[in-house]
């Protein structure tokens, strides 16, 4: 066990105002069970889960309510016992509509646990992977990629390094930070389970140097771990938490274009995901709740709340003392990659790490002047693209011109738009361009 400074740092990136002090000191607090939960079927990347309950059914906490609908999909469980009152369409934080199982929670909570594997060190990896999949564990850093899939790389792609992502580079958010401080021991067991499953030689815990207390907590938790284990201290720079950039910072390897971390022998898991793995394997608890940072200058008492997935944002706001002044923008997630929502009637999901309420003076207007070709976006882009040229192509509807400029490699981190003096909505252009390309590719696949 050692603590090492990160040997490399990706090129590009930005240094936004982090504003983490608002919630960093607030210990994780459990949200009182809301009367009603709206559990979306799409809390992960891939096909939405298929409901297996119907209106009128009574469910126990942890009971399966929807099963995975494909290889890249994840099941959904009831966060609490109660009665299913409806299965209706809801708008999720990402702006897409999906079906949701609405549960009226019961005053008497009954819990239906999954099997547990206290002897996981002697359990077959395959069995553990199935169990983690059945518990609905997905990446909790933001994308929501099903962990089961990540943990089963093809045999020709051996994994030698597991990276535990504790960078939490998004401004304002502190949920992973608090998890590392308060649940270091559980995270360690989760990480070891992941390492055991993948048979990986090395384990790295990647934390930015602006969280010395988290680094200390992790050092302490992992101090007697065998093998090649180290805390890698990353230079504070956004987006250190992005998978590809983090792998480069920790190992110096570049994930090839269009490839996955496993192509360079790495798997990156968020610290909260490691906790969820521990919870599923050791406690038999499916992923039905998570810590969410409720923060911003328009919330009365910023907090880190442990809330069931399916809690409406309005319930979270109420638990934090309500809105302070006027909220002009409500963001699900952090300010760099989070989604603005149009109302508080939106449910949380497994990937919702934060809820940010900003007052009118804190929001930035992206008014889109002409590009003055200052090249700052080119310097800031961690994927080393040319957002200036890309956005101009897309603005002129020249998607064919944008595609060869590696449009699809954009990770939408927002660094370009953050630095743009002309305040061009660069990421918005990228998203639009990518959507057009995706639609074209889908159409081309349909009619070969």
């Amino acid at each position, binding site marked *: 066990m050692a603590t090492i400074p990160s040997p490399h740092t990706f090129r590009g990136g930005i240094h936004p105002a982090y504003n983490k002090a608002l919630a960093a000191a607030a210990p994780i607090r459990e949200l009182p069970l809301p009367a009603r939960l709206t559990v979306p079927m799409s809390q992960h990347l891939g096909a939405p889960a298929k409901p297996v309950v119907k209106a009128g059914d009574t469910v126990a906490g942890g009971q399966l309510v929807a099963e995975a609908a494909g290889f890249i999909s994840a099941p959904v469980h009831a966060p609490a016992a109660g009665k299913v009152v409806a299965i209706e369409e809801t708008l999720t934080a990402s702006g897409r509509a999906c079906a949701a199982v609405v549960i009226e929670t019961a005053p008497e909570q009954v819990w239906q646990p999954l099997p547990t594997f206290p002897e996981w060190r002697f359990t077959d990896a395959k069995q553990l992977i199935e169990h983690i999949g059945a518990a609905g564990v997905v990446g909790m850093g933001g994308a929501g990629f099903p962990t089961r899939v990540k943990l089963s790389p093809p045999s020709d792609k051996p994994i030698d390094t597991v990276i535990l992502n504790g960078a939490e580079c998004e401004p304002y958010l502190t949920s992973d930070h608090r998890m590392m401080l308060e649940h270091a021991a559980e995270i360690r067991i989760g990480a070891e389970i992941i390492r055991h499953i993948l048979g990986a030689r090395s384990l790295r815990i990647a934390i930015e140097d602006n969280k010395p207390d988290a680094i200390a907590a992790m050092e302490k938790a992992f101090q007697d771990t065998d093998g090649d284990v180290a805390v890698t201290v990353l230079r504070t720079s956004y987006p250190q938490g992005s998978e590809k950039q983090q792998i480069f910072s920790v190992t110096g390897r570049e994930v090839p274009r269009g490839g996955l971390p496993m192509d360079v022998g790495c798997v990156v898991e968020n610290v909260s995901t490691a906790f969820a793995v521990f919870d599923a394997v050791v406690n038999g608890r499916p992923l039905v709740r998570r810590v969410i940072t409720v923060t911003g200058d328009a919330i009365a008492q910023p907090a880190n709340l442990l809330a069931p997935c399916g809690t409406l944002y309005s319930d979270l706001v109420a638990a934090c003392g309500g809105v302070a002044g006027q909220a002009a923008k409500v963001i699900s997630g952090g300010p760099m990659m989070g989604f603005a929502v149009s109302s508080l009637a939106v449910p949380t999901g497994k990937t919702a790490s934060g809820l940010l309420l900003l007052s009118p003076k804190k929001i930035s207007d992206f008014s889109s002047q002409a590009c003055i070709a200052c090249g700052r976006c080119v310097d800031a882009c961690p994927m080393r693209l040319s957002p200036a040229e890309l956005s101009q192509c897309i603005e002129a509807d020249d998607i064919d011109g944008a595609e060869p400029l590696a449009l699809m490699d954009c990770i939408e981190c927002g660094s370009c738009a953050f630095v743009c003096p002309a305040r061009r909505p660069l990421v918005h252009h990228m*998203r639009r361009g990518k959507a057009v390309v995706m639609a074209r590719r889908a159409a081309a696949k349909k009619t070969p």
Partner: protein
Amino acid sequence: MDPITTSTLCIGGIGLASAAALAVAEKYLSVPQDPRIGKVTEMLPGANCGGCGYAGCADYARAIVADNAECNLCAPGGPACAQAIAAFLGRAAAAMERRVAIVLCCGDDTEALRRAAYNGIADCAAAQATAGGDKGCAYGCLGYGSCARVCPVNAIRIANGIAKVDKALCIACGKCVAACPRKLIKLVPAAAEIHVLCSSKDKGPAVKKVCGTGCIGCRICTKLADGAITMDGFLAVVDYAKPLTNEETVAKCPGHCIRKDAPPPTPNS
């Protein structure tokens, strides 16, 4: 030799030599191409709109001649063009009626509410991807003009936050149909004049909450329309295969979303 003869002979010689070389080359080296393709290309209107599904008029002409493609796929050319091509190639002309695009929403900014303040690029798909769009109605026209931008003949105007197709200009190429992220635009027979200009599948009360001119699923029109309007859940839908002329449907619609096309403008208006 006098200069005139020399020059005549010289130029004539160069000309003849070049002509001979070209003729020989043409004879032994040329690559044949079906001459009918050129003719058919000329018969097509040359709008290159791609509405037929091919890459421009020349490609469509090639497809008609070489791949035996249907010759009635050209919407801008209309029936006349299809018949001309069919006659030229000696094929049976398939029947074709003029169609036009129509936006099945009439909830403009006077009648329908916006649920958020959108700050982003003026594109419907982009707005839709931002928190599901700023329109209160999840089915209604966002009004950021993606359809108008793809229209090759500028037949679509955005006015008061809603798109409207100019029937006279529309060539039914179908580009707007594909461009609308909410699938609000349909191609309908140009002869049809009465339409249900709403696409909301929500129940009446939900519609009323967000729009003053939406279909509330009251079914009054279905009785008056003699089978030409059917219900799709809580939404009245015109069956364009049947004639719909009863103007009472327009007058009696409590949601005011059944509308008759305005008569074509008089020249001096």
